């Protein structure tokens, strides 16, 4: 199976992590990622603006109900893990991450023929790194702002000897956060490419089955990213020392 896959990849049918690129001012920009990110962003922004216009305290629309459900869950998580007052901005951040990643992941259901231009942007490390690094920098700032010098204490706990390990752990957080999402979604697209090698007469069945499963993966990964964001904020800024569990 593996050798077949490699053979197919060398045959030029399965390309992994290759992008059409733009070169502007000496910078290399992945064109497909930017386009699909922009599409996902437009969808989320349209959704947000629609809600801003129609949100009501009376009978909510279905979209509003979805948004409210996510908001409630996020608020509950933030409240139970670190307290909304400690870092109120975590709520909109986690909500945005969830919806943006969800829509971005779900771009994977577009037909295979479009994949050359619109593939899920989360299958490119550039987006996942951007989000993860942004989140982690906010986490560190929040931790230092909330706890002051005491924030650094956790690097030498429970023993000072563990300082390097703790530092590595902290630095791997953005990397694991981004690569987990990236790997899952990229694997989904690779899977579709591999399935595309099958004869057209039968490939529709596994492809559609896989895309349905991919929807579930997309939802799960969006959920994990948002939840881990909240938890990282909790580790960094929770009033009492939380037990770090990975």
């Amino acid at each position, binding site marked *: 199976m593996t050798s077949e896959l490699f053979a197919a990849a060398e045959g*030029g049918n399965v*390309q*992994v*992590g*290759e*992008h*059409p*690129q733009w070169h502007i001012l000496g*910078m*290399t*920009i*992945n*064109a497909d*990622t*930017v386009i699909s*990110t*922009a599409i996902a*962003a437009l969808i*989320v*922004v349209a*959704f*947000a*603006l629609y*809600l*801003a216009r129609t*949100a*009501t*305290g*009376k009978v*909510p629309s279905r979209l*509003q109900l979805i*948004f*409210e459900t996510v*908001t*409630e869950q996020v608020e509950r998580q933030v409240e139970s893990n670190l307290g909304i007052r400690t870092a109120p*901005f975590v*709520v*909109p*951040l986690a*909500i*945005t991450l969830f*919806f*943006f990643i969800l829509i971005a992941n779900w771009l994977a259901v577009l037909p295979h023929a479009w994949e*050359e231009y619109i593939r899920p*942007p989360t299958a*490119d*490390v*550039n*987006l996942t*790194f*951007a*989000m993860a690094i*942004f989140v982690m920098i906010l986490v560190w700032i929040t931790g230092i702002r909330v706890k002051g010098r005491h924030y650094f204490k956790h690097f030498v706990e429970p023993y000072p000897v563990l300082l390097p390990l703790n530092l590595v752990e902290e630095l791997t957080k953005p990397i694991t956060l981004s*690569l987990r999402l990236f790997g899952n979604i990229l694997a989904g697209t690779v899977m579709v490419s591999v399935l595309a090698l099958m004869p057209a007469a039968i490939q529709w069945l596994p492809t559609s089955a896989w895309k349905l499963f991919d929807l579930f993966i997309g939802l799960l990964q969006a959920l994990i990213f948002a939840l881990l964001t909240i938890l990282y904020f909790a580790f960094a800024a929770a009033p009492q020392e939380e037990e770090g569990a990975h």
Partner: protein
Amino acid sequence: MSSYYLAAAGGGGNLFLIPNATFFVELVIFLIVLAVVWRYAVPPVKRGMDERREMVRRQIEESQQASKRLAEAEDRYSKALAEARVEAAKIRETARADAQDIKDEMRHQAEQEVARIRERGEEQLAHQREQIVREMRSELGNLAVTLAGRIVGESVADDARRAGTVDRFLDELHGMAASDSSSGDTGGPSNSSADSAGDGVVTARNGRRRR
């Protein structure tokens, strides 16, 4: 197509785990989305949720108040019902007593009426009897004298003797009538005696005419 894949064209593996300048574009796009959601979507939805929560809270409160008022009203109702029942029983009792009183009174009145009517009847009867007796006393006297004169054929000139004879006769007659009335009903004998007296008169007149 292969012209796009510069990294791939560079031979070896491509470094798709290393971010390039796309990172900054992606970051900007994400920040825009974050700003829009944060600024425009979250506040109105949260406001809506709060409003609805407040509304639900108010409705629960109102429904609690309403059920309390309902319980109070039911309490008042049952109390009023009990009072009304007591009142009705009292009224019924009074009415029954009144009816009894009225019945007694009316019976009493009726009895009095009956007694009065009977008394008056008796008085009338006695009165009539007396009148008849008086009439007969004068009439019978003359008749008897006339009759006796004819039969005896002598004129009874002596007034005093005549009066004595008549009176004696009448007294006898009266005594007869009295014994009759005590044995029979009150009206009978006096009426019959009056009738017989009338007959007697008629007969006497007839006899006189015949002569």
